């Protein structure tokens, strides 16, 4: 009795002391931040009244953001992920730069260009740009970089070599059908003129040139396979250079004074932390240790999105990112070889409810495959071609299911296996969808959770029934979503094989008439969704992020990729 009493007493004391200490800490800090705020706002207000511009730059132009993963490489030829894209975009510049506001390619290292009438030959005129060591950026730097990408003997070979298959003889050189690189469609006419010849007319080629696989590299990389593993051997031509790199911990890029447009670069430094925890990132942001949080470089925990949206309305930002979340069928095996059964499942998913109650990221319900944000013949493809390929309709679905079962000689659908890769978000959606199917159609669904690489392996080998999938754009054209479904396509994990579909895509690939292409794409999309329903679209992704109100000039492109180079910080 006595013992438990003293124990209680002790707990009480600990609690009291804790609260008192806590109270002190809190008060002191609140008081501090209060006075700070007062001190900074007062002079700002007084200067503002006199001057025209109400933007005053902060003295310390250091931007702080987090990357959820460290870029695996800083070699543009080897890069293949979005984190590398985020950082490389600050360090390099290609022939063109994307203007994220207009979605158009603007002059980058190339000052201007001429395009031949057949859309096959591009002649680029390079501006007087310099590498970070003062060397001029020349046409030969592009030829060198592209040769490294396309050379199968590069060690290790470039995983994204196929991004350069647009060039004449690009693929042939990689597969050694053409031995002489001079036959590949890239030539330095003189130091400042680059001539590029394509295999087929490619309306989005200028946009592609702003992508990292097309960046130039400095001549010092020759003979030094490890040049991109140390900041001291990286000579770059972009707005910033890598100045610090602690593996697993942090990165820092600093302004490159040799950059041709340095006058318009206001940031002095960008500090990247490498924290792989959404909760920590959000807390750091709220605590003022980060200036921007969330996608694409970082992460806000899914369940926190609705909360911060209310809590920080002026800092919260939501943007479509031209990606689609869907479930795909293995259509080579029973019962999903039957299109009516596939349709029945697609029609009984309540997309809005899924978005509002489960995904919670303000996504857009999808009834098509090509997401908004992708360019069409004139404006966005999705605006011109509506995604009204099917409707949510339980009654119709029941009818279709019954017909489908009869066609397959079944009385009821055997239990279905739905696989997804390990992730809290995917799991919630899978459970919700399984429940919707059970409610509407009385189907038993077993959800199977698989580790990422195992999942991909199973899916690519058609070792599944229904599997989760997502697709993001590689470039700004419907082609990046539609050419994957051709017979035997590398990313066609459904087993879909339709010669008519293949014909449509082939036709679109050789056509340079934008209106004609759009028509072909619309037909193709209708075929995979409305006619054959090889996949169930759920929603078009959005990215949610938080940006401090004093951070300006950060831009996001159609796919949600971020450009920090023109950002600046206001006094705060």
């Amino acid at each position: 009795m006595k013992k438990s009493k003293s124990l209680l007493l002790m707990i009480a004391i600990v609690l009291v002391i804790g609260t008192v200490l806590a109270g002190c800490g809190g008060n002191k800090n609140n008081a501090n931040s209060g006075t700070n705020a007062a001190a900074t706002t007062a002079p700002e207000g007084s200067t503002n009244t006199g001057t025209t511009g109400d933007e005053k730059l902060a003295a310390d132009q250091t931007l702080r953001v987090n990357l959820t993963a460290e870029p695996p490489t800083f070699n543009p030829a080897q890069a293949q992920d979005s984190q590398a894209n985020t950082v490389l975009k600050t360090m390099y510049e290609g022939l063109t730069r994307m203007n994220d506001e207009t979605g158009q390619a603007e002059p980058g290292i190339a000052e201007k260009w001429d395009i031949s009438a057949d859309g096959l030959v591009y002649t680029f005129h390079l501006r007087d740009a310099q590498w970070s060591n003062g060397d001029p950026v020349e046409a030969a730097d592009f030829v060198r970089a592209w040769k490294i990408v396309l050379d199968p003997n590069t060690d290790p070979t470039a995983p994204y070599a196929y991004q350069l298959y647009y060039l004449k003889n690009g693929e042939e050189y990689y597969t050694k059908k053409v031995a002489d690189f001079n036959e590949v469609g890239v030539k330095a006419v003189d130091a400042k003129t680059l001539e590029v010849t394509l295999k087929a007319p490619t309306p989005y080629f200028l946009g592609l040139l702003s992508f990292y696989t097309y960046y130039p590299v400095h001549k010092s990389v020759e003979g030094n396979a490890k040049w991109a593993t140390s900041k001291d051997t990286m000579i770059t031509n972009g707005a910033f250079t890598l100045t610090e790199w602690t593996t697993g911990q942090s990165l820092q890029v600093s302004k490159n004074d040799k950059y041709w447009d340095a006058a318009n670069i206001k940031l002095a430094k960008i500090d990247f932390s490498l924290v792989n925890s959404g909760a920590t990132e959000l807390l750091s942001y709220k605590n003022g240790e980060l200036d921007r949080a969330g996608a694409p470089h970082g992460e806000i925990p899914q369940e926190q999105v609705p909360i911060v949206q209310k809590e920080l309305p002026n800092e919260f930002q939501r943007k479509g990112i031209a990606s689609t979340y869907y479930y795909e069928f293995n259509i080579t095996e029973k019962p999903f070889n039957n299109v009516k059964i596939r349709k029945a499942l697609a029609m009984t998913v309540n997309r809005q409810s899924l978005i509002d109650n489960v995904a919670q990221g303000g996504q857009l319900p999808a009834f098509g495959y090509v997401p908004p944000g992708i360019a069409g013949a004139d404006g966005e493809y999705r605006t011109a071609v509506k995604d009204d390929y099917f409707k949510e309709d339980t009654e119709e679905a029941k009818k279709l299911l019954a017909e489908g079962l009869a066609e397959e000689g079944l009385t009821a659908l055997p239990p279905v296996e739905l696989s997804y890769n390990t992730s809290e978000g995917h799991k919630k959606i899978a459970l919700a969808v399984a429940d919707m199917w059970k409610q509407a159609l009385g189907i038993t669904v077993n959800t199977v959770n698989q580790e990422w690489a195992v999942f991909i392996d199973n899916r690519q080998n058609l070792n599944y029934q229904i599997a989760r999938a997502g697709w993001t754009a590689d470039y700004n054209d419907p082609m990046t979503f539609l050419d994957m479904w051709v017979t035997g396509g590398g990313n066609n994990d459904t087993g879909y094989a339709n010669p008519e579909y293949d014909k449509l895509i082939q036709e679109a690939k050789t056509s340079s008439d934008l209106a004609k292409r759009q028509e072909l794409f619309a037909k193709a999309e209708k075929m995979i969704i409305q006619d054959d329903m090889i996949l169930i679209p759920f929603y078009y992704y959005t990215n949610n992020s938080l940006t401090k109100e004093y951070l300006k000039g950060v831009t996001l492109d159609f796919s949600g990729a971020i450009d920090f180079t023109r950002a600046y910080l206001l006094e705060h």
Partner: protein
Amino acid sequence: MGMVRYIANKFFYMLVSLFVLISATFFLMKAIPGDPFTSEKKIPPEIKARLYEQYGLDKPLYHQYFKYLGEIAQGDLGVSMKRLNQDVTHLIGQTFSASLKLGLIAILVSVIVGVFLGMMAALYHRKFIDSAAMVLAVLGIAVPSFVVASLLQYVFAYKFHMFPVSGFKGPMYYVLPVTALSAQPIAFIARLTRSSMLEVLHADYIKTAKAKGLSWAAILSRHVLRNGILPVVTYMGPMTANIVTGSVVIEQIFGVGGIGKQFVEAIGVRDYTVIMGITIFYGVLLMVARFITDIAYVFIDPRIKLSGGKEG
């Protein structure tokens, strides 16, 4: 002479264990589906074939295995398959230095605080201090470290702004992760110390010492503490290895670029050379830690004889 033989013996067993570890990890790793070049956007077959060729993944498994053993024998851990061209030794070096720094401080804190708490609890047995220390100890063991970490972060970094939320740039950044990391060992050490000291305090030789008229301070430092701390030394070996190899959870929550985080990431992307490199590194570390513990034991506890059958 006995010492040399003892060490040679231990060393031999270490090599055997290491060999078993390498072989088992190698084959298990290859048995999991997927490889470093598995990605949602499939690489065209001709490029994938070229990558396999360059990394030797096209060869039969036994061939890859012996080639790897040969490289290891020469002390070459190779280059990462995902972090292109980066040396595995460099990756381990950079990330381990962060884990080591954090770990060493945490060990120091755990031992000092743990032994102190345990001692006080034993000396004031069944008094308030005893109960207080043991409540803390139970909490420390029962509450998982990620809860402790998140709580510390929320309260001391976010609410009271006393420490930064994440990062690893200076002393202020160390406080929270070190606290979170040492909570469990402190609790464990405190309990160990307490029980073994209680035992020692009631031993006959303490009574003898008292009867001889030795001062209490001398008894404490020379007899009680020295004997009471023995179990802690045993625990120190595995604990050291455990802590310095990096806690994935703590490293993730506080944004410390340590080796634990690196290891988990490498497994996720099937970075074969990094997985093997860190496994070998962990293995060696653990074995060395145990080895040192065994040696330390000999010095602290005179009852242990080198020729005796005490094998790790």
